[in-house]
């Protein structure tokens, strides 16, 4: 192996300069070859001869370095005399030297800060404009559907409703039940200190009906259905199905967005109500086990401390959450570009953006309506 290492020997004679190549001038020794050529400067003002008498093998990368380095030192390539190369090697050298003509400028890999900043800013601005335009399209599509209800795809709506609603029931039920249990358990430890056992009912029902169930359900739906919407629509964009829908004279908004928007707006309040019930059940069970509050006492107390208005207030928020999730998810689906990484990137974006949106909307509600019992 060792005698295959590349080496380079330079002999200066009166007639010119002779470069003797030895060993394998191949890709695995490329760094070494580069060093050899750098250590052996070739005078450019005399006749250059490359001798391959002891060369074992040369590949296109070896030729590239030889040609590039000699050219960089000012040697005019066609005037180089090639000695003892075989026929294959000669064709290779001529091919590479021809392709590597001077036109190919080295590319810079550095990126200037200012253009980057400008590019990001325009990207952000066009993105924002796109969001507004998308919202406009939806309003337009909605208006059309109200004028001509036949345009609404009922089958697609029900299919989406099933995916968003009933299919999410087990996970929503389980999560809210667990949160009810945990919340009641921690609260029971506190109320017992004050001998205020019965007030666990107030705390648990208000927290669950007003905040925990709506928020938790919305977050679950954002992660579950929002991500699914973006991935579905994004994959359809990648396979040009959305273009096909447009070419058939249909509106992608009506076919894809409205059914999903309506499905999630209908499903989220219903899911939240299931969440309310499961959370309270979990809390009642813990109150019974930890504080000896009977189920009868628990629900009697609940009737008096949490009027229907408060439960409804929790439910009123959810269609707004739902609309935000659907808008973000569908919009991100439509802007997916046609490569493999994009779908995943935008799906992640949907989940993050919609959870942030849900929490922001929830805080707005909390500030606008601070009264606990209305």
């Amino acid at each position, binding site marked *: 192996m060792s005698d295959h290492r590349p080496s380079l020997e330079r002999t200066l004679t009166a007639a010119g300069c002779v470069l003797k190549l030895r060993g394998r001038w191949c890709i695995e020794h490329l760094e070494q070859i580069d060093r050899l050529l750098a250590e052996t400067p070739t005078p450019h003002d005399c006749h250059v001869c490359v001798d391959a008498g002891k060369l074992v093998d040369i590949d296109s990368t070896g030729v590239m370095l030889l040609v590039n380095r000699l050219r960089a030192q000012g040697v005019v390539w066609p005037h180089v005399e090639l000695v003892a190369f075989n026929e*294959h090697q000669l064709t290779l050298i001529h*091919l590479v030297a021809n392709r590597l003509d001077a036109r190919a400028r080295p590319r810079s890999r550095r990126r200037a800060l200012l253009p980057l900043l400008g590019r990001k800013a325009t990207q952000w601005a066009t993105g924002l404009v796109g969001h507004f335009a998308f919202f406009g399209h939806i309003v337009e599509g909605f208006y059309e559907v109200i004028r001509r209800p036949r345009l609404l795809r009922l089958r697609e709506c029900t299919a989406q409703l099933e995916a968003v609603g009933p299919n999410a029931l087990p996970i929503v039920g389980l999560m809210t039940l667990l949160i009810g249990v945990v919340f009641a358990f921690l609260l029971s430890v506190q109320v017992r200190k004050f001998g205020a056992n019965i007030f666990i009912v107030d705390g648990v029902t208000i927290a669950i009906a007003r905040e925990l169930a709506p928020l938790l359900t919305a977050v679950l739906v954002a992660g579950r259905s929002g991500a699914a919407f973006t991935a579905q629509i994004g994959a359809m964009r990648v396979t040009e199905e959305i273009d096909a829908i447009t070419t058939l004279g249909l509106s992608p908004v009506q076919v894809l967005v409205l059914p999903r928007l309506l499905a999630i707006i209908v499903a989220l309040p219903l899911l939240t109500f299931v969440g309310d019930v499961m959370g309270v059940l979990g809390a009642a069970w813990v109150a019974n086990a930890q504080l000896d509050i009977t189920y009868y006492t628990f629900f009697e107390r609940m009737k008096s401390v949490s009027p229907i208005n408060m439960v409804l207030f929790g439910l009123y928020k959810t269609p707004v959450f739902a609309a935000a999730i659907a808008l973000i998810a569908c919009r991100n689906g439509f802007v997916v570009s046609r490569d493999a*990484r994009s779908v995943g990137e935008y799906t992640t974006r949907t989940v993050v953006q919609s959870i942030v949106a849900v929490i922001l909307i929830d805080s707005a509600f909390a500030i606008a309506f601070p009264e606990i019992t209305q």
Partner: protein
Amino acid sequence: MNPAPNDPVLEVKGLHTHLGDQWLHRGLDFSIGRGEVVALIGGSGTGKSVLLRECIGLVRPSQGHVRLFGKNICDLSHSHLNQVRSRFGVLFQEGALFSSLSVAENVAAPLIEHTSLPARLRDEVVAMKIRLAGLPMEAADKRPSELSGGMKKRAALARALALEPELLFLDEPTSGLDPISAREFDHLLRVLCDSLGLTALMATHDLDTLWGMVDRVIVLHGGRVIADGPVDVVAELDHEWIRKYFSAHSGKR
């Protein structure tokens, strides 16, 4: 390091493939010597692509074996198989460029994985490969989605050539190209094969490719190799399918 020059680069022996519930290949035998450019033809569904995938070790044949560079790739461990894989390049039918990387990054990908070249030298090699595949340097920073079909094939070829392979597998290299680009691509392939000393096995439907640039044709029919030889010899053979295949071409003219 190099086997004797007259050893076959690729050798397929007694290869059977059971796919679905039928035998796709029933005993294929052929071999390809160093420097040969060989075309694999056969009707749609005769298992050309599957055979290529078996040769590159993506699919295991049901029986028989495939020898690449004298090594039976069906017996090789994962790491040894990867060593063999760095000695051949594959040009997939649709190019199979990584869609989230630019052309230059696509060509650099095998270099990053299999060599320890410093970034400066790597860029130089990448630029050379892109030029060698006949692409302008402006294409280097483009995404595959911004390229035409012919440019995609050239970019994929540049990536397949990145590691100085000795053997090249091509799955329908000229499909989806217009006749002019297809002939240009054929010419490019032939020039590269001759000057880089490449051995090539391509599955193709393109008769012009067969007549124009191929040393030898292997015909798959009914799960067997029914002909193996230079194209002018194969075209004269008295076999129904072969006659139809070659007359489909002349009929059009």
